[in-house]
C-alpha cells in the first residue's frame, strides 16, 4: 500500500466517524453509509435532517460497499467504535463511539479541516443542487468557450438531455448569446475570487472549453498527490459557496444567477396540483376547506394527501392518522399479505377510513424507497 492510499484510508475513517457521532446508540452502523452515499430513502433523509448531517449527505455518491466495509472494520479494530447488540428482538443493533474514538475524531476533524469544508452546508437539498449546478455550469462554460472560438463542432461533456436543453434555452436568443460571451468570464471571476486558491484551481481544472479539456477529479488528485475522496470536499465547498452567493445576491451576477433559479414554482417532489394542496395543508386547512378553496373534489384532495404521505417524509399526518392506528393497519396488511385497501378495510371494519389505510400504506412505501 502506498502513502496515498494510506492517507485516503485515514481520511475516509475521519469522515465516517465524524458522521457517526450523532448517530451512535440510535441508528445502525449502515445509517452513516447511506447518508454518505446519498440514498434517497425517507429514513436516510429524516436522519440527515434530525441529526443535522447536511454536509455528509451525498458526500461520496460512488462510495462502494467494499470500501465502506474496510473503513468499518478498521474503526472496530482500532477500537474507535464498538458494536451494540439489539436490545429487544424487534429493535436493530447499533454502535457506540469509544472515548478513544471521540478523541481521534476531533484530531482528524482539525487535520482534514472538516469544519471549514462543511461550513456552507446548513440546509437540506444543497447536495442535489450542487450536482445540477455543476453540470449546468460545466456545459455552459464549454459551449460559450466554443462560441467564442467560433467552432461549434464539439462533444458536449454533459450527455444529460435535460441539461443540454437547459443550456440551449439559455443561449437561444442572439442577445443572450452575446451577453454570455461578453460577461461569463467576468462573472465567474467575481464569483470565485473570494474562494481559496486551491479551490479555484480545482474548479477551473475540471472545466472544458475550446482551449482545454477538463481533468477528472481523480487526475487532479494524482497531480497533487492527494486522494480523490479528499478533493471532493474542497470541490463541494467551492460549489456550495458559489450557490449560496448567487442565491443571496442575484443582482450582482445577473447571468450566473440563472443557474440557481428554480424554474418550477412548486415543490418538485410532488405533482403541481398536489403541491398546491400541500401548501394549504401546511396552513392548517381541512380537507373540506381545501376542496372548497381549490374548487376540486374531496376525493382529489385525499389523493393528494396520499401522494404527500409518500413523498414528503417531514409531513406530520397524525391529524388524519394516529400512530397506533397506522401500526394496526400495517400489521393487518402484513398479516393478510395484501396491500389491497378493500381487504384491509373489511378486516378492520368501520373504525378506519380508506384515507387512513392509504396514508399508512403510503408511509410504509415511502420508507422502503431506496
Amino acid at each position, binding site marked *: 500500500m*502506498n502513502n496515498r492510499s494510506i492517507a485516503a484510508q485515514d481520511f475516509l475513517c475521519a469522515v465516517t466517524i465524524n458522521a457517526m457521532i450523532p448517530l451512535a446508540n440510535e441508528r445502525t452502523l449502515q445509517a452513516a453509509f447511506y447518508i454518505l452515499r446519498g440514498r434517497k430513502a425517507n429514513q436516510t433523509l429524516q436522519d440527515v435532517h434530525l441529526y443535522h448531517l447536511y454536509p455528509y449527505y451525498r458526500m461520496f455518491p*460512488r462510495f462502494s460497499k467494499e470500501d465502506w466495509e474496510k473503513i468499518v472494520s478498521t474503526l472496530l479494530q482500532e477500537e474507535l467504535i464498538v458494536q451494540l447488540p439489539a436490545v429487544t428482538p424487534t429493535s436493530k443493533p447499533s454502535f457506540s463511539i469509544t472515548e478513544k474514538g471521540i478523541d481521534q475524531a476531533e484530531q482528524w476533524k482539525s487535520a482534514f479541516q472538516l469544519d471549514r469544508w462543511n461550513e456552507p452546508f446548513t440546509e437540506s437539498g444543497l447536495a442535489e443542487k450542487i450536482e445540477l449546478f455543476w*453540470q449546468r455550469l*460545466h456545459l455552459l*462554460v464549454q459551449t*460559450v*468557450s466554443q462560441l*467564442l*472560438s467560433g467552432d*461549434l*463542432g464539439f*462533444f*458536449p*461533456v*454533459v*450527455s*444529460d*438531455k435535460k441539461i443540454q436543453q437547459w443550456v440551449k434555452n439559455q443561449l437561444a436568443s442572439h442577445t443572450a448569446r452575446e451577453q454570455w*460571451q*461578453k460577461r*461569463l*468570464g467576468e462573472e*465567474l*471571476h467575481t464569483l*470565485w*475570487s473570494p474562494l481559496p*486558491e486551491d479551490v*479555484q*484551481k480545482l474548479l*477551473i481544472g475540471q*472545466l*472544458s*472549453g475550446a*482551449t*482545454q*479539456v*477538463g*481533468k*477528472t477529479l*481523480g*487526475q487532479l488528485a*494524482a*497531480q497533487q498527490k492527494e486522494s480523490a475522496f479528499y478533493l471532493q470536499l474542497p470541490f463541494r465547498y467551492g460549489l456550495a459557496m458559489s450557490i449560496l452567493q448567487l442565491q443571496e445576491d442575484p443582482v450582482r451576477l445577473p447571468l450566473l444567477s440563472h443557474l440557481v433559479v428554480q424554474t418550477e414554482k412548486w415543490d418538485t417532489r410532488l405533482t403541481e396540483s398536489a403541491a398546491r394542496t400541500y401548501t394549504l395543508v401546511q396552513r392548517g386547512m381541512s380537507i373540506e376547506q381545501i376542496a372548497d378553496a381549490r374548487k376540486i373534489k374531496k376525493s382529489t384532495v385525499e389523493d393528494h394527501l396520499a401522494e404527500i404521505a409518500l413523498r414528503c417524509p417531514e409531513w406530520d399526518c397524525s391529524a388524519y392518522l394516529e400512530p397506533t392506528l397506522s401500526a394496526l393497519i400495517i400489521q393487518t396488511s402484513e398479516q393478510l399479505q395484501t396491500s389491497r385497501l378493500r381487504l384491509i378495510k373489511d378486516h378492520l371494519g368501520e373504525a378506519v377510513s380508506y384515507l387512513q389505510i392509504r396514508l399508512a400504506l403510503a408511509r410504509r412505501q415511502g420508507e422502503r424507497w431506496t
Partner: protein
Amino acid sequence: MNRILLEKLQLHFGHASFRPGQREIIERLLSGQNVLAILATGGGKSVTYQLPALLLPGITVVVSPLISLMIDQVQQLRTRRRIPAAYVNSSQDPAESREILRELGNGVYKLLYISPEKLQQPYIQSVLKRIGVSLVAIDEAHCISQWGHDFRTDYLRLPDAIKHLGNPPVLAVTATATEDVRKEISQLLQIAQENVMSQPLNRENIALDLVRVSDEGERREQVLQLMDELKGPGIVYCSTRNAVEVLVASYQLQGSKRVHGYHGGMESMERMLIQSQFLLGELDVIVATNAFGMGIDKPDIQYVIHYQLPSSMEAYAQEIGRIGRNGQPGYAVLFYVEDDWQIHQHMVEKEYPTQLQVMQFFQAFKTAASANKDAWGPTEMTEEMVQMLTFYAEQTGLDQEVAAASDSGAEHVQRIWQETEKRKRLKKQKLYEMLRYVEDVNDCLRKKLNRYFGEEQVAFTLHCCSCCGLDRQAYQGDRTNTTNKKDENSWDLRQALEKLLPKK
C-alpha cells in the same frame, strides 16, 4: 454528373477527390441499385450515403444501432457540413421525437438517423412514406446476419420495414464481413452479386505480433513494459472492467506515460473527458474494454495491445483497425494465456437462456406479462435476453393466442430454445476461430487474418508479423517522461479564466 459529385464533395466534405471505391458505390446508388459496401473503418463510409442524400429528392434514412454514434454524426453533419439532419431513438422523450417527426413531415431534413426498433413503428413508417424515402443506408449491416458476430434481432425485421417504405434503394455498409455474412446480407436485402463492393481488407501498415505467456504475472509485466516503451498514442484492450482497473493501477505505480482507464462502469462525464483528452493528445494510452473506440476518429493511433484474447476475429480486426489511419506504420500485439477463452465462454453462457428460463419466459409470455418488466424479476433474465426470446418466439409463430391455447407449450419452448442454442453455438464457434488464430503458431498471421475474411492479400509496409519476422524496436519511442511537464507558474484566476473564455 461527375462534376456535380466532385463539387458537392468539395463543398460539404472538404475533399478534393474520392477515396477508392466511394465513387462507384455512389453512382450505383444514384442509378437505383442496392449495394453492399465493405469499407474499412475510417475508410470514408459515411460519405457514401451522405453525399447521395444531398442529391436525391426526398429523405435518406440511416439505420444505426449505436445511439452515441448517431448523436455524434448528426452533430457533425449540422455544424461541420451544414447538412440538415436529425435522429430518432430511444434516448429521446416522446415529445422530442414527435417534434422531429413533425419537422420531418415539413421536409426540413435531408437525413434521418434512426435505430432499427424505431423504424419498425407503423406511425414513423407512415410519416416516412408520405415524404418519400430515396435511400435507406444500413450501418453495421453485419448485424443482420445470423452468422455475424454481432447479430441483432431487430435488424432481421429491416427487410419488412424497407418494403413498407416502398422499396427504395438500399446501401448496406460494414467494416468486417466474412463470405457467409456477405451472402446472407445480399440475400436478405436483395443485393446483386456485382453490387457487392469491397475495399481491400488487408492493412499494409499494421505489423501483427502475437505473444503467448505462461501466466498472468508475466503478462502484466510485459504489457506494463510495452506501455512504457512503445511510441504512442496507443490503446490497450482488456476483456473486463476489473482487468482495466487493475492494469491502470499497477501502471500508475511506476509508469511514466499519461495513462487512463475507460469502461462502461465509469460516469458519463468522466468518459467524455477521458475520450476528449485522448483525441487531443493529452493522454498517451487508453486502457479500455471494448466499450471504447466505436466512432472515434483519431488517425494517429500507433499501436493496439490486446491484454487478453478477443472474443472473435471480427472484434479483433475491428479493434486493430483503429491503428494508423493516417497511413503511418503501426503495431498490433495480442497477448494470451492458455485459459483466456474461459472468460468469454462464461460470458456466452450467461448471455443465452437455460431451458428452464425459456419455460419461465413462455409462462410469462402466455399471461401477457411480457410488457411488464417487473414480471421478469424472479427469472433473473436481462432485458436483452427477454428481447431475444420475444424475437424467437415470434419467429416460431408464437403469439399470445397460440400460447394461451397451449398448456405447457413444450413444443414451442423446445423450438425457441433450439434457436437460442444455435446462436450460442455460433458464438462459441467464433471464439474457437479466434483460438485457432492464436494456437496455430506456424503460419503467417496476416495470411490467417485476411483468409478468415476471404482475402488472399499479404502485402505490408514495414513488417508483416511475428511469424514472418518483425523488429519491435521500430515501434518504440523515446521514453521521455511526459507526466512531469508541470507548470509551476504562480496561479492567477483571471488568467486561467481568460484562457478558457477569451475576451471578445
